[in-house]
């Protein structure tokens, strides 16, 4: 240890100044360091193996799939008969109908299309907080949804909402899970990010859009992005990741009594606050009001919203909450 470091440690011991930033409460065993890449729960994959992503209405994918697409197509399911028109494929003429009705009728089939699921995972600095981290919880949700989509041979488009643009993860089968986990492991959370920029550059609209975030962003850009998804008919679903520390910091031991300097995980902004019981109660009341505001905004836009806490068991969330929300089946 250098001389300077020794003096700094002695000074900190004398005056109780450690010089480190408390990450919010007492760190649990095995908690990743701040700024570490998300660590999705891979044990979730067997749980979601039997689940599929469902989307009301026709599938809008371009490729051949197992979902009914709009209009007739080259599917396997019979749709109807229609009179033969020149240019129709002769292989679709129904000989049985000609023998019985003496009319040239052509059999038509439903189009089998795949459906596309776009997942936007918020990797902003605010997600890099909580015990356990909201980032790990959100990444696990994203991994489970991606696995469900790939199980149904749907097209997956995973977008990471980060401060620096990243390449989306695309896939149509379970072989894409490997690159997906690798992409998550390589991501670096932090900074301020916008959902709109992350979702930009897509060539067509998806069947479902899922936004996984703690919504601790500025209201206007987030609502604009959700409104755009809703207008595009992508039936957005907001998975609201909540940490108990955000809602009731006093109960979680995040804010002890006395003078505290609160540091914004995203912007690094600092705010000094004298904390006592009344402040913690006011914080909890403000958190409840904030949740109500988010819920009202989603209802106003027409966005479906489901909440999940970082300590909520993910199997139950997938098998119960998301199925009730109509996203999985």
């Amino acid at each position, binding site marked *: 240890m250098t001389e300077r470091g020794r003096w700094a440690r002695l000074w900190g011991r004398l*005056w*109780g*100044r450690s010089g*480190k*930033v*408390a*990450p*919010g409460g007492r760190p649990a065993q095995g908690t990743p360091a*701040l700024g570490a890449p998300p660590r999705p729960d891979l044990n979730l994959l067997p749980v979601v193996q039997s689940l599929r992503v469902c989307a009301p209405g026709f599938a809008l994918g371009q490729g051949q799939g197992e979902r009914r697409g709009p209009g007739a197509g080259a599917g396997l399911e019979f749709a109807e008969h229609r009179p033969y028109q020149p240019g129709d494929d002769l292989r679709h003429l129904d000989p049985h109908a000609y023998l019985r009705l003496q009319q040239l009728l052509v059999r038509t089939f439903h189009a089998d299309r795949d459906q596309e699921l776009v997942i936007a995972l918020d990797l902003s600095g*605010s*997600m890099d*907080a*909580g015990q356990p981290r*909201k980032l790990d919880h959100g990444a696990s949700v994203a991994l489970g949804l991606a696995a469900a989509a790939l199980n149904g041979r749907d097209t997956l488009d995973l977008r990471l909402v980060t401060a620096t643009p990243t390449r989306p993860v695309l896939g149509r089968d379970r072989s894409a899970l490997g690159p997906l986990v690798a992409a998550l492991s390589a991501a670096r959370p932090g900074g301020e990010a916008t959902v709109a920029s992350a979702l930009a550059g897509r060539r067509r609209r998806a069947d479902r859009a899922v936004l996984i975030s*703690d919504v*601790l962003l500025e209201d206007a850009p987030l609502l604009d992005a959700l409104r755009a998804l809703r207008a595009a008919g992508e039936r957005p679903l907001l998975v609201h990741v909540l*940490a108990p*520390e*955000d809602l009731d*910091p006093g109960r979680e031991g*995040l*804010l*002890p*009594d*006395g*003078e*505290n*300097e*609160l*540091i*914004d*995980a*995203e*912007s690094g*902004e600092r*705010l*000094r*606050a*004298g*904390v*006592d*019981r*009344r*402040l913690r109660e*006011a*914080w909890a009341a*403000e*958190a409840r009001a*904030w949740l109500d505001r988010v819920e009202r905004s989603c209802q106003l836009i027409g966005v479906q919203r489901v909440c999940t806490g970082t300590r909520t068991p993910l199997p139950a969330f997938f098998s119960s909450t998301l199925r009730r929300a109509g996203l999985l089946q």
Partner: protein
Amino acid sequence: MTWAWLSLLLAAAPIIALWLRSPPPRAVRVSSLLLARALARANARRARPPLAALVELALVLGALGLCAVALARHAGADASALRLLRVEGGPSSAPEIVGDLSLVDLQVELGLVQRADGQVAVEAALQRPDELMATGATTTASSPAGAPPSAWDPVQAALHEERALAALRAQCAAAPGTPWAAVDPTAAAMLRAASCLQASGAAPRDAPPLRLSARRTDALGALELAVSGSTEDPPTLRLDEGPTLPVPLSAAGASAVGWAQLRWDQAAPAVIHLEGGGSDAAALPAPPPRRVRVGLWTTAPAGALARALRAHPAVELELLGPGAPAPAAVELALLAAAPPVPLPPNIAVIAALGVDPAPISATWAPMAPTTPRVQPRLGAPHALTRFTTAVAEEGALIDGLDGGTLRALRLPAGASALWTGPGGPTLGVWDEAGQTRVALGLDPERAVRAGQLPVLHLLANLVELAGGAPPVARLSPTRAGWFSPPSGGAASLLPPSSEAAPAPLLWAAAAALTLQAALRRALRSRGRP
């Protein structure tokens, strides 16, 4: 000065420690400040109690103001340990002494040594406080009641000159006829207390049938004596074991008054006793009450020399920088720095104190300077050396000045060498161009700071010499009103109580800052974000 700074440090140390020890804010990383900002806005909308902020601000400003006032007022004040002593079992007019504990030998000499003839020398000295200052180091005396040394018990102690003077002021107001004495190593306390002592000592508590009053009419030994009371025979005055002098009465009977005038060698103890018809005694009054305008050319306006002169009751001091022109009305020019060029001719006395005496026609002797731990030989008796002989007989005249040097002078023709050191004259006086010029080969700044009595009396004698001590008009003796304490009492001669000691101000400042810190801590605990 030292005590003032120590008080400031003692007052400031706990405050600084409290501020440093206040726990630093704990840094907590939160997901977002959206909620905290909303809370802060909500709290900001609520009317923050302005009273708390104003009180906090007022406490801080008040504390700073108190510190500034204390430091500005007492930046140059000397502190000393003073103690008020009282004789147990003595008569009602037993003297009380304000003394310095550091001068234990002096107190022993004053109160505990029995003299052979039984004369209460302490009482005699107390009646001449200026003499006491001069002879205190060598006076052998007994307490008035013959009390043993253990009988001198401290009744009030003070750590600062101002507190001791406040105690003296209260005692003077309560018993204006009680003789007093004050001995203190700091010149300011000595000179201030002397003015009070002389005024209070002239009015005995128990008035005898014949009352004697005395006043000095000039600085060269002229005395004016008055007797009043009830007597038929002319009383006789005895001048301190010396010759007797009959006082003719202008009127006899119940309202007898008499008046006499004589000249007395003031280098010897002079206590005037009234014999026949009464046993009153009188002390010589204070130096001439006329204020002498003194110009001090110095580079240390807050030094010990300037403070001592400022404390002298008969000095109207004007501080001047080196080479500054002399004001027109200055009567005594004390040159402790470069003098004005040319020397103004209308100044009665010019004294070069420890600086090059060339401007007043004297030069340094070529001999190297010596330390002042020497015994200069005394020259002819002179008004400037009054009260210094007794001290000189006991030991070194100037002793123990840190870093001080004694230099010899080469005086002009006709000059009188009053003090002579190993290398030649070190104090000389002569008349030139209608002025009395004095040269001292010693830095008086260090001497006054160290409480060297000869130098203090040299300064007082210079003031008196410059004042001229002109003969006053003959007074008609009356039964009351002679040399009695002034209308405001002897206490009025002491400095006003507005010159409070710095310690209370500093402690008040410390209390204000502590309250402010406590208030701040309380506001923090209330959770204002």
